């Protein structure tokens, strides 16, 4: 992979739309295939959001950021979360600073100095020196805390200003929208709704049954679920690997997984199967698990019956 493609600077320029068509294609091809580069790109996006929220981007970069990274409701929600993260950090830090400030020297220390037999003159000199050093240290610390507090207040004011700017722009745009709607006599629209980027995963824990005729568990699966994790307890975990075949109740094969390994959990050994939710319709299924014996032949290791209800 081209080293330059992996640099944060290039990825930042990609996100801001500042790169050539060729570079852009190369980056896109790479991150579709390379998970590490994709994660790096998301981290660069987080940093850009953070810099925007703190007002640390140049005017040009701010404009490009707003065009490229605030175009969809999902991206604007991400910015809002960054603002809350920063504000929450400030609050946490302020609380931590206050709690540090309140910490006083412990009496056990004084006991350790004066509680044992010492020469009174030496103890007095030591006490004086200690008092002097403590006072100076407290004074310096106080000054630092004041400076830190002032800096945070300035940052907070800047943040509030950013929020006011954003709200003012929002009001302008809403006014403009409302005028346009009046002009065209169109009713107001519902806000856009968008689901999350991260795949939605449903985990279903199957009970072990002995025969294919048994009635199994029933699970309701929402339409928004992308992947289903089936967790199956194993009655027999002596095999090195397993195969699993998902069948419809009438015996038609739906999905097969090979080379599966048993996992030790608090409830005993289990298999974890990842199945795209698209494949599961609202009906009854049987999951047939086979253990691969030393002679490489599959042996029955469990049947699981369950029903999927779609809503």
């Amino acid at each position, binding site marked *: 992979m081209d080293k330059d493609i992996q640099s944060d600077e290039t990825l930042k320029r990609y996100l801001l739309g500042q790169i050539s068509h060729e570079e852009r294609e190369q980056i896109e091809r790479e991150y579709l295939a390379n998970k590490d580069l994709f994660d790096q790109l*998301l981290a660069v996006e987080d940093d850009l959001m953070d810099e925007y929220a703190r007002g640390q981007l140049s005017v040009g970069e701010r404009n490009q950021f707003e065009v490229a990274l605030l175009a*969809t409701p999902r991206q604007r929600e991400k910015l809002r979360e960054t603002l809350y993260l920063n504000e929450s*950090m400030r609050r946490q830090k302020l609380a931590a600073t206050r709690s540090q400030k309140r910490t006083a020297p412990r009496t056990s220390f004084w006991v350790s100095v004066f509680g044992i037999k010492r020469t009174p003159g030496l103890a007095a000199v030591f006490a004086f020196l200690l008092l002097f050093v403590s006072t100076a240290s407290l004074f310096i610390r106080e000054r630092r805390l004041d400076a830190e507090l002032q*800096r945070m207040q300035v940052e907070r004011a800047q943040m509030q200003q950013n929020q006011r700017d954003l709200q003012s722009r929002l009001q302008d*745009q809403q006014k403009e929208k409302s005028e346009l709607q009046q002009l065209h006599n169109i009713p107001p629209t519902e806000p856009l709704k*968008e689901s999350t*980027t991260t795949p939605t995963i449903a985990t279903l824990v199957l009970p072990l049954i002995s025969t294919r005729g048994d009635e199994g568990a029933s699970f309701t699966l929402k339409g928004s679920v992308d992947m289903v994790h089936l967790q199956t307890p194993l009655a027999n975990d002596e095999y090195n690997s397993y195969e699993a075949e998902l069948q419809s109740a009438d015996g038609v094969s739906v999905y*097969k997984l090979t*080379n599966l390994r048993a996992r030790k959990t608090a409830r005993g050994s289990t298999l974890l199967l990842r199945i795209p939710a698209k494949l599961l319709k609202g009906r009854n299924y049987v999951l047939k698990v086979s253990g691969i014996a030393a002679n490489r032949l599959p042996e029955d290791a469990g049947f699981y019956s369950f029903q999927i209800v779609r809503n």
Partner: protein
Amino acid sequence: MRNRSLKRDWVLTEDSFNKLLDALDPDRQRAAEQYEHLRRSLTRYFDWRGLIQSERNADETIDRVARKLSDGGVVDELHTYALGVARNVALESLRLQQKEQVSLGFSPSLISDPREDEDQDRRFGCFENCLAQLQPAQRDLILAYYEGDKRTKIANRQKLADEAGMPIGRLRIQAHRIRERLDNCMKRCLASSGEDDAS
């Protein structure tokens, strides 16, 4: 907004989906992981192009790639092919989106929810809860990672990476994953507290 979408005249079948998985990786477990990555990265690809229906577009792209494989088409490099398809889907979707916005007088605003101030306490409450749900080491890392302004922030991060004995890039990805966890927790919290308000 009316829910217009790209025209679909083909539906992904089990057989075509299996062919797609085979093309991603001969091992089913790894193929499923690759599928998840492909879908997730395509979704962000459409986001970064300013397209609202990013997940739907990602699914449409995957369907078209699967259809090509199902019809016996030869695909030498699947990700390059998927990118070509994604580009076409993006163009089609952009045209549709522009038509929607023009016809409805829609102009994208910077903040989608006008009740921001009313929501503030609820959001801070959720945020504090979500931070508290992180493991202490993760919470410390994310707080330290975003501490300071531009210069001190860079120095802080280098110090954190040195202390953890990892390259700075690795640290950033760790911080991003914690952010994702926070984001997901926030979404769940806001959705559930919204339901509470409604009931």
